[in-house]
């Protein structure tokens, strides 16, 4: 993990192998100190078992723009934390081939109050869906299809 800045410590992780969200959260909490802040909110997104057209999904492939993706996630997280007056932010995102049921994204935010923590998780999730260079391809029946748009909120 990179050294967090004291004001808005932002941790970004791009992961090529399956990860256990609760284990990442535990390590993140430990890195921030024993006594947590008053409010902490998380979101875990997992790969659905079917494609957008309802076929059984073999795997989701996540292409990204190495270098720019980390920088963008970090910039989006820092801006979101600053806008909402939140504290620490963790963003973990899988890349490569991901099996149905596996976690693809984890967002966690600590703040002094529940409002900033909840709002920052929600907004950052929308931000990274639209402004971080990631592209999804669904594999089904041996062929891959690029996903045209994001799932509805």
């Amino acid at each position, binding site marked *: 993990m990179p050294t967090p800045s004291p004001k808005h410590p932002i941790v970004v992780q791009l992961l090529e192998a399956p990860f256990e969200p609760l284990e990442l959260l535990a390590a993140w909490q430990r890195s921030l100190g024993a006594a947590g802040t008053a409010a902490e909110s998380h979101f875990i997104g997992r790969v659905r078992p079917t494609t957008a057209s309802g076929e059984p999904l073999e795997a989701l492939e996540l292409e990204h723009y190495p270098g720019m993706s980390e920088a963008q996630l970090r910039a989006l997280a820092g801006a979101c934390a600053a806008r909402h007056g939140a504290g620490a932010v963790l963003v973990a*995102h899988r890349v490569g081939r991901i099996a149905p049921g596996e976690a693809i994204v984890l967002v966690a935010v600590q703040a002094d109050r529940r409002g900033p923590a909840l709002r920052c998780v929600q907004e950052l999730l929308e931000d990274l869906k*639209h402004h971080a260079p990631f592209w999804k391809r669904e594999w089904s029946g041996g062929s891959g299809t690029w996903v045209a748009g994001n799932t509805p909120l």
Partner: protein
Amino acid sequence: MGHQAAPPDNQVRVRLFAALREQAGWGEREIRLDTGSASAADLWRQLALEAAPPGSTAVDLPPTIRVAINQAFATADTPLRPGDEVAFLPPITGG
């Protein structure tokens, strides 16, 4: 904005991703710009990744394609400098 004379080796690195990369058949190339003060939009027309419609000589950058220069989002009319990394990004589907 002062015009900067193009060096003799007026070359940029072009990167394509996802569906765009597959349609083109390549993901990364060094490209010598046709003109000295080209923008990302000019570069797109030069690349001619899509077939031009009848009666037209080039295809403009579609509004759905975003541009990144040196790994930061940029507008399509940003002038390119030699050595820039120019990426054309199809619609993003992350998260």
